[in-house]
Every structure is written in structure tokens, then in C-alpha cells.
């Protein structure tokens, strides 16, 4: 296994993107990385999408207002700002800034825009990227840490800009634009047989009124398409720059690791820089000299005799924990065999959730806790060995 040198990444990266499937602890990881970088002396902002209430509060985030606010209690000379993404207002700002004068209000009021800005598949991802490129533009920060939206697939984040661009360049949009562009009569000339079938069917299905709304909406948006497309492309390019690093987060579970594997492969295909994989909520045991088999056998013996119920219960617990640790190590090993060379770091499972700076600091320290010795199941030389401890 290659150990993930997170402090190296934190010291040099300009953008860190935390990604992974839902529920693996992306937001906490992003916050912990940002805090660590700030306490190492950098000017950092963390862009979170949907933080847990108490975690948000601990960083002083009380409202969703799209404004980076300083986090209090950061040690050292660095600074940490945090903000929550407000998708709708980010989209509204985009329209206001890029639409032709006088057209913005019409777009903002159109029912299609209103639905699009709140529920278009990928809007959240695109807006996160948009915000990222805005923050980058300000030059206020040495490092921007981005948490990605909770999606069914981590890949959605990478696909969002292309999906939007594909939509804008699609034939459908061109057809809807045609009447507005060419004016009534000229439009008729370009109406081919198949196109007239098409518009007839469309009118029949959605009705002439809706077709008109839609056409007006697309025409109004069209005035800002140029800007949109360019920005989508430049944000995407930003992710390929040397200063960008992706941190893929997973839990040691089958589905989460499978999702992480897809993402790692995709990053490689896109030539996007991967810092490494964080395996979150790993169960370990500090007990030396007591194998799970031995624990369970001993517990059974005590239970049969009815003596020392406390020891029997504790032995059962230890057996459970070792079994879980072994299963997790097995899943992680499978990932590593398929993706050799991907640096990995583990973060131990905590009994409770992290919701203060001390908790984030502790996670940050674990993320930076390098070396194979931090990891059960590996010798310093990187050779896998069985995770279980020697029996007594």
C-alpha cells in the first residue's frame, strides 16, 4: 500500500475536492482537511453542501447565505472561512450577471427557469463548480476545499458541466430557438417534413402554451449561453490543473468502495489528479494477543459456566469487533489489489459524530497519521499480513 501524505497535499494544493458516495463522511473529511491546512498556516475556505446541523454550528455556519464566514477558534497564523452552498441564489446570480440587460427578470420569473434552478438533475453539482470557480477568482484564499453534493453517483459531479453543455448545444434547444431567431416566415423555410412532424407531436403532447413558455425561456437563456458554456468548460479545466487534488472518501463497505473504485478509474481516464483514498470509520482493535476465535471460545466457556459475565460480555464484544475489522480489511485489500498505487489513509470509527473543532482536529491528525504502521493488516514493507492478532 502507498500511504497518503495528506500534509504534503494540504501544503501545496490550491483546490481539494472531496468526493464519494452518500453517507461516507465527505463533509466531515472536507472540514477536517480545511481546518488542518488552516492550522498549518494557510488561508483556507471550505465550501460545504449539506453539513450536519451541529457540525455547521461548530464552524459558525448558521445560515445558508452563500457568504464565506470566518471560523472562530482556529489556532496559528492561518485562517479558515466556511460557507454553505445556496444553489438557487448561485443560479440566480449567474443569470443576473450574464443575461442581457432587461432579460434577467424575464428569465427569473419563467416557470421553466424556476423548476430548472431547483431541480434540474445536476444543478447542485454545477452550482458547486460555479461557486468553486468564483472563489478561485477572488484570490482571497491559498486553498479551497470543496465538499461534493450527496448524489447517487459520485461521478455526477464530474458529469454536471458536460450535461449542461450538452443540453445547451442539443438539437432540441436549437429547434426551440429557431422561431425566435429567424422570425416567423424565415422559420417556415427551414421546417422540414420531419421537423413539422416533430413540432406537431410536441404541440399535441405539451400544448401550444407550454411550447411557447419553453421557447421563450430557451430564447431568453440563449443570450447567456455563451458565457455559460465557457464557464462550464473553464471550471472543468480548473479540475485538471496541477494545483487540484481529489480526495475520494469511502467507508470500508462494499458499495462505498465500489463507488470509490468507479471514481478513481474515472479520474485516471480524465487525467485528473488523485491525492488518494480516505477509508473512513474503520474499526480496529488495540488488543494484542487475543484472537477473535480465542475470544469467542473463551466467552462460550464462561457463559456455559455462568461465571464472570462481565469478562464473557467483553470477550464477545472483542470478537465482534475483530470480525468486523477483518471483514473491513478484506474489502479494503480487494480495492487495493485492483488499484495498486492509489495512496490510502484510514480514519478510525468514532462512537459518536464529530461536531466541534477538537473533533475535526482529531480527524485531521488521523488523516495525516502516515506510515503503514497506522494501519492494521500491513507490515511496514507494505506486504499484507492477516489482520488478526496472534492467539494466546
Amino acid at each position, binding site marked *: 500500500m502507498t500511504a497518503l501524505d495528506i500534509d504534503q497535499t494540504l501544503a501545496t494544493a490550491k483546490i481539494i475536492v472531496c468526493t464519494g*458516495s*452518500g*453517507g*461516507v463522511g465527505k463533509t466531515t473529511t472536507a472540514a477536517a482537511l480545511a481546518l488542518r491546512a488552516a492550522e498549518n498556516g494557510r488561508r483556507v475556505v471550505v465550501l460545504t453542501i*449539506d453539513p*450536519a446541523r451541529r457540525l455547521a454550528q461548530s464552524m459558525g455556519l448558521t445560515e445558508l447565505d452563500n457568504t464565506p464566514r470566518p471560523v472562530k477558534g482556529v489556532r496559528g497564523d492561518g485562517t479558515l472561512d466556511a460557507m454553505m452552498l445556496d444553489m438557487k441564489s448561485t443560479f440566480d446570480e449567474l443569470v443576473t450577471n450574464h443575461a442581457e440587460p432587461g432579460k434577467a427578470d424575464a428569465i427569473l420569473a419563467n416557470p421553466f427557469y*424556476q423548476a*430548472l434552478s431547483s*431541480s434540474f*438533475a445536476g444543478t447542485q453539482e454545477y452550482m458547486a463548480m460555479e461557486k468553486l470557480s468564483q472563489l478561485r477568482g477572488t484570490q482571497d484564499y491559498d486553498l479551497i476545499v470543496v465538499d461534493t453534493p*450527496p448524489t*447517487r*453517483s459520485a461521478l455526477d459531479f464530474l458529469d454536471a458541466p458536460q*450535461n449542461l453543455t450538452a*443540453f445547451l448545444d*442539443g*438539437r*432540441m434547444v436549437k429547434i426551440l430557438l429557431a422561431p425566435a431567431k429567424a422570425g416567423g416566415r424565415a422559420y417556415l423555410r427551414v421546417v422540414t417534413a*420531419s*421537423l413539422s*412532424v*416533430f413540432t406537431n*407531436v410536441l404541440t*399535441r*403532447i405539451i*400544448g401550444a*402554451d*407550454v411550447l411557447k*413558455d419553453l421557447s421563450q425561456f430557451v430564447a431568453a437563456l440563449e443570450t447567456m449561453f455563451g458565457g455559460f458554456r465557457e464557464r462550464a468548460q473553464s471550471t472543468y479545466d480548473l479540475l485538471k490543473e496541477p494545483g487540484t487534488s481529489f480526495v475520494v472518501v469511502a467507508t470500508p463497505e*462494499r458499495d*462505498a468502495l465500489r463507488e470509490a473504485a468507479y471514481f478513481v478509474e474515472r479520474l485516471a481516464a480524465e487525467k485528473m489528479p488523485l491525492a488518494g483514498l480516505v477509508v473512513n470509520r474503520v474499526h480496529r482493535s*488495540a*488488543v*494484542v*494477543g*487475543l484472537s477473535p476465535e480465542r475470544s469467542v471460545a*473463551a*466467552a462460550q*466457556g*464462561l457463559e456455559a459456566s455462568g*461465571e*464472570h*459475565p*462481565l*469478562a*464473557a*460480555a*467483553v*470477550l464477545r*464484544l*472483542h470478537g*465482534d*469487533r475483530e*470480525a468486523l475489522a477483518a*471483514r473491513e480489511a478484506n474489502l479494503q485489500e480487494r480495492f487495493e489489489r485492483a488499484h495498486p498505487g492509489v495512496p490510502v489513509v484510514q480514519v478510525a470509527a468514532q*462512537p*459518536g*459524530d464529530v*461536531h466541534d473543532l477538537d473533533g475535526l482536529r482529531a480527524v485531521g491528525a488521523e488523516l495525516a497519521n502516515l506510515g503503514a504502521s497506522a494501519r492494521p493488516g500491513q507490515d511496514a514493507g507494505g506486504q499484507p499480513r492477516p489482520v488478526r492478532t496472534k492467539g*494466546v
Partner: protein
Amino acid sequence: MADFPGVRLHVVSGKGGTGKTTVAAALAIALATDGKRVLLTEVEGRQGIAQMFDTPPLPYEERSVAVAPGHGEVVALAVDPEQALLDYLHMFYKLSPTGIPARSLRRMGAIDFATTVAPGMRDVLLTGKIKEATVRNKAGTPTYDAVVMDAPPTGRIARFLNISHEVSGLAKVDPIKGQADSVMALFRSPLTAVHLVTLLEEMPVQETLDAVAELRAIDLPVGGIVVNGVRTPRLSPADLVSAQNRALDGGELRAGLAGAGIAVNDAMVSSLAAEAYDHAERVALEERGRDALAATDLPSYELPLLPDAVDLGGLYRLAESLREQGMA
């Protein structure tokens, strides 16, 4: 007697990572037990059902994936928005999927547009297909005794189910509007129950409570809460308290270990006590989660954390547990 006798559509949602696909599959098996026929559907294109039942990816076709105890059958369907749209055009406009008008729509990108871009439209199509399967019958005999939907996660569930709102601003004419309204009528009726899957952890519990409030605010019937991944408390209540206070009786623990023939030392005793502390903290956290969920007054069902990743055998165990607890 099961807790949801009149319900024909079981919608299963939950925060990402809580195991909602597993619970949806287990519930389908539980409902199919004793000669019933149940349709298990997914709508997010993840092929989660195929992975769960270890079958090749599901086509857009109702396909038998499992049997249930007592000659029951679970049929699966991965609803694909594009196919659902073609179905819809066929049903309401008599457009054959292979005819010129449908091909023209496809060539012009209208199918893509409607299924990936037009907001709300996609959800109307997906939910419309679920509704069709739920009410489908032959001479009054329903095709399926129940339909289970592996639905989008809690963060999106209220919006997903509340399609009439999404569509009202966009489609002003029938049959799209009529279709959305009839789907909504089914969702709001006693024939539907929205179940929420959670873990006894802070964030999933909070999201569950938020989802209950959101669903109730739009008059959608919340069914039960399924608590997944429940661990068995190993320690007695008194020992849990001492473990949490880091005041476990080290002498007794040591004596017990020695009594079991283990070569015990100080480090072993203290690291085992630390594991007991973690466990006690976890149990306390779970208790707090349970209390918070109890405030919703919804029926709740607990599923054990399985020692290994959920395989087919595990699914049947979970299904049995749901039946024993009266969910099905």
C-alpha cells in the same frame, strides 16, 4: 395481523448509506411470503436490485428475481425514464415506440430533453409507471398484491413524490397534468405508505425526522421507520454505565479472563476496557436516536447488523424479522 393491511404501494426512502435498497428488498420478500406476488421497483438507474439479488442488470421489464417462503414471488423492475416516456406516449397518444412520430421525437432530442432536462417531467414519468403497476389489474384482480419502491434518498424524497407541485407550473394541459394529479391522488391515499430507513446515528436520525416533517407537511402518508444495523448490547445495563464512565471493574474483568485460561496482562485489560467504553458510548448514542425517533409516534422496526455483507441468505433473515415485527 400486519401493520399496513390496506397499503398496496410501499415507498422506501432513507439517507444514503442506511441500506434502503436492502430494506426495500427484504420488505418485498416479507410481503410476498405465503403465496403473494410483489413487485420491487427502483427508479434511480443504479441497478441496486440486481446487485442485491445477484442477477445480471435488469432490463426495463418485469422479471421474477426471487421466491418467498410459502410460494410467494418477488418480481423486479428497474424503471427507466426513457422507456417510461415511450410507454406513456403509447398509452396516451397511441404513438408506437417504433413509429415515425416517436422516432422523430427521439432524433430531435426531445426524449432526452424530457427525461433528463425537463424538471419534474422525469419524476412524473417514473412515478407514473409505479402508479400504473400498482393499480394494474385483470378483471378486478390486481396483478401485484403489493408494490415496493426503492425510492430516492430522504433529501429528495418529498420533492420526488410531490410531483403535482413540480408539474403545475409547467404543464397546463391534459393528459400530463391529469396524469400528475392521478399519481398524486394515489400517493396521498391510504393505499400508500412512505417508510424511512435510518441508522441509530446522529445525522441519519436527524434526516429522518426532517423527512417525516416534510412529508407530513405535504400530506403524504408516512408509514414506519426501519432502524437498520442495530447492534446487540453485549454488556448488562449496570456494566454499560460503568464502561461509559471508564469505571469498569478491572479486577473482575481480569479474574474472568484468567478464569477462561487467557494469559492476561495490564495492557490487555485496559484495551478491552477501552473497547467496552466505545461500545457503551455507541449504545448511549443509539438510545438517544431511539428516543428522538419515538417522538414521531410512528411504528418502528429494528433490523440487526448482519455480521457479513448482506447476501441473499441475509435478505431472507431480514424479511423474516420484518414479518415477526408486524411490518408485513
